């Protein structure tokens, strides 16, 4: 009796999961269809790579590279700036260091609409609109608090005695940081990097406002794709598949650490 009910619950879980995932599955599937097969929801079709070929010979590679470039640069910049800050916040005894920490993280909570207009006007005057490093700068600034938030929670796990021990052994602050702290928190580092990649890759709001064509990222291109190209659903699905793949993979790898990252260390997953 107990076994059957448990099996039923399991089957229900499977069904829910499949229904929930279905739109994504359908999107990936449609990317492999001929245009004519897409409008009729049939599962029997001749798979083709034609769509992927067409879109890669088109301008998509430009936007894809933009996305890759901006994501990588701003991820590494925010890591380089954010990790030392969080180390300092956790390890040294600042006066009111806690308040400083909350000052940092409160900036991530504000809605971006609040600052987009001033940023737009400033960028306009500095002629930084539609440039790579304009957008990179915004993303870096936006994500440093996130890095601090996450890394602080990981640094807090490192026992304080370890640092004292290394000091007694004659290590300088810098050696301690690079030789002991960073290797110890490598899981935290990788989780943070993956989370940043997901966030920056998917960022849409600033990308839409601050870029047009030259530095536009994939999300912006996606949003404008349909109006430019008309009803090419198969190609659209192919582009979508490529666009969602990096964050999807990053997320899948990162599942375990994700909870902690997303709740900003409030919960240890």
């Amino acid at each position, binding site marked *: 009796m107990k076994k059957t009910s448990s099996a039923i619950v*399991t089957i229900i879980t499977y069904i*829910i999961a499949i229904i929930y995932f279905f739109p994504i599955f359908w999107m990936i599937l449609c990317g492999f269809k001929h245009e004519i097969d897409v409008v009729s929801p049939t599962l029997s079709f001749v798979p083709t790579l034609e769509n992927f070929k067409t879109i890669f010979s088109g301008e998509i590679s430009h936007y894809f590279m933009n996305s890759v470039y901006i994501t990588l640069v701003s991820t590494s910049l925010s890591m380089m700036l954010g990790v030392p800050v969080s180390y300092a916040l956790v390890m040294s005894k600042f006066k009111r260091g806690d308040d400083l920490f909350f000052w940092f993280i409160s900036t991530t909570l*504000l*809605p971006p*609409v*609040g600052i987009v207009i001033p940023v737009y006007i400033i960028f306009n005057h500095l002629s930084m609109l539609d440039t790579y490093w304009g957008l990179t700068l915004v993303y870096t600034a936006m994500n440093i608090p996130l890095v601090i938030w996450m890394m602080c929670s990981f640094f807090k796990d490192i026992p304080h005695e370890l640092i004292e021990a290394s000091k007694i052994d004659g290590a300088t602050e810098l050696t301690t940081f690079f030789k002991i702290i960073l290797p110890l928190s490598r899981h935290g580092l990788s989780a943070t990097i993956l989370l940043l990649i997901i966030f920056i*890759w998917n960022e849409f709001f600033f990308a839409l406002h601050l870029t047009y064509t030259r530095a536009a990222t994939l999300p912006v291109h*996606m*949003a404008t794709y349909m109006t430019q190209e008309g009803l090419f659903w198969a190609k659209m699905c192919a582009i979508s598949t490529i666009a969602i793949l990096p964050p999807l993979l990053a997320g899948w790898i990162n599942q375990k650490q994700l909870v902690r990252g997303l709740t900003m260390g409030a919960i240890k997953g």
Partner: protein
Amino acid sequence: MIRWIIVRPDLSKKFIGLQYYKRIFTSSEFWLVFQNTIVLTIISLVVCLILGILFALLLNRQFTGVSIVRTLLISPFFLMDSVIGVFWRNVMLNPSFGLLCYLCKFFGLTPPDMLAKTPLFVIIILVIWKWTPFFMLVLLAGLQSIPGEVLEAAVVDGANAWNKTVYVILPMIMKYITISLMLSLIFILKTFGLVFTTTHGGPGFASTNFPYYVYRIAFLGWNVGKSSTIAVVIIIISLVIILVLFKSLRKTITEKEV
């Protein structure tokens, strides 16, 4: 507080004091947008929470393929808003060729044009689809932190599954529920990409929320002064929410350390 319309240089920048504030608070548009934002946020939070608890409970068991199921369930969370929007608008919900239309015909119903008739509802569905995995992940972490002895004790005391869930499990993951509610509240208030790609805030203002409203006035109407005014109002509203969140988040984090 400055009248500054970029496409009307003849009007020049001019300080006009509190006029814009007066104007937006008396306009019906603003209150409609306000109402939309509230409805969108509350409904999606409630449904996300319920679904999230359900999914988390379903996944908090041992069965074959549990990690695959979890992977499938959290996937929507990683998608970019513009892809979700464009894909759902066309392939799923298109009134003449969409998958939904096909399903409706299969069951002998007239396919509804959901994007035109109930645009806010569509956005709510998409927000729920995207944010339920977040709740699920956090609550699952919560469920797994409950020590097994507690559940055993409850069973020994004669609690059935329902009682166990309501009186033992839910109070124990209360902290996780509050955290996920507050964080997703912040993110859902920011929802922009979904609105932009599905409905463009239309028809009329029927599915415009605050971020999109600012966008509309600043970048489609080029009225920088007015949109800044609205942005200020939004920031004040969010600040109030954030302050509340701040206090409780701080409390939970410090509690954790003790």
